[in-house]
């Protein structure tokens, strides 16, 4: 995470091997190489490991990131590491239009470009989450991995038993909304929301 300032947060590239493993990489001008930039404040904390640990991010409150900011981040990190990210939007309220107060980002270990496995175990293990409702299931479709754009921008499976549509049909008792997050083809790219709740 960068120093405390008003600039957006960023994740810097670090060396992966050798005795300098973990050290920040610098370009020829001496500037740190950025892996992911433009991250809204309040998402990143010291010691986070999105690969191995589930993350809970409060959204919408004072000093907290917006839901859109978290959506932007989760698509960026998914594309950077080359996997689908997944999780859920949580609220103390009930119903499809509930005000979202937390985003549960599941660890991405085991996911790949076309698969994601979501377990929301903190809902069980964290007492503060006992009264939270799962409102929206989300997963990302990475847009930078050579997957045809048509498949990036639509839920997999249009009929009952397959892919995202099959998932939605089977799990409407657990989630009210079903969302794919990806990135636009514009430059600079932006987060793109594909709501397939009623697709």
């Amino acid at each position, binding site marked *: 995470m960068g120093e405390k300032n008003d600039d957006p947060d960023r994740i810097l590239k670090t060396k992966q091997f050798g005795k300098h493993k973990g050290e920040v990489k610098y370009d020829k001008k001496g500037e740190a190489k950025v892996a992911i930039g433009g991250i809204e404040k309040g998402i990143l904390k010291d010691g986070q490991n999105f690969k191995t640990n589930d993350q809970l991010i409060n959204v919408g409150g004072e000093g907290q990131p917006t839901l859109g900011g978290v959506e932007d981040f989760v698509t960026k990190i998914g594309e950077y590491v080359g996997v689908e990210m997944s999780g859920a939007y949580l609220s103390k309220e009930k119903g499809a239009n509930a005000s979202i107060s937390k985003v549960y980002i599941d660890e991405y270990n085991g996911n790949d470009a076309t698969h994601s496995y979501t377990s929301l175990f903190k*809902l*069980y293990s964290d007492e503060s989450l006992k009264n939270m409702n799962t409102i929206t299931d989300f997963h990302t*479709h990475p847009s930078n991995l050579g997957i045809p754009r048509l498949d990036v921008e639509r839920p997999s499976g*249009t009929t009952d*038993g*397959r892919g*995202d549509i099959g998932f939605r049909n089977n799990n409407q008792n657990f989630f009210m909304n079903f969302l794919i997050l990806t990135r636009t083809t514009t430059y600079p790219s932006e987060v793109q929301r594909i709501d397939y709740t009623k697709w």
Partner: protein
Amino acid sequence: MKNYPQLLVILLLGFQGCAPWKAGLITHGTYDIAIKNAVLDFSNTTSLVRQDSTFSVDFKDFDSGIIGVSLLGTIGKFIVTADGKTSRLPTRYLEYNGKLFYWYDAKYSLEKDVITKLNEYSLIDSVETIAQAVFVHDDAKKGVNYYFCKKNLSNYKKIITTKALEYCELPKLNCSNK
């Protein structure tokens, strides 16, 4: 000697035509029969049948006189929580050669024997809360899509694909007089 390749092709086609399982294909009926024919073909001709022991079935009635049936190895279990929430459970199934094929048909209500069968194949994950469940999104698993002539359900084509019935280009089927 130079006619051997053609002879081989003829012999292979002949053997395929004599496959005993083909006698089980039913010509006339609705999507239920199309599903049975698809399961019969799938179980006898594709290697995908060996990759899973349970398969979800999907079907779709196309306007063009074609019934589509899709068979795909199970992705994720059905979840039942202690507080009574459940995944939508299939209402129909059939077993063939020790494999389970199941599908949801809104015309049928959920019967106890379906739940028993799902349990038998360990397809139900009973958990205390949603927090202990695992939800799987799989956009890439390959299955087989079958396209049957409605007028003759033994006339069909199949496509091994990751895509759903509607996403695939309908194969050319001569459904007129067969």
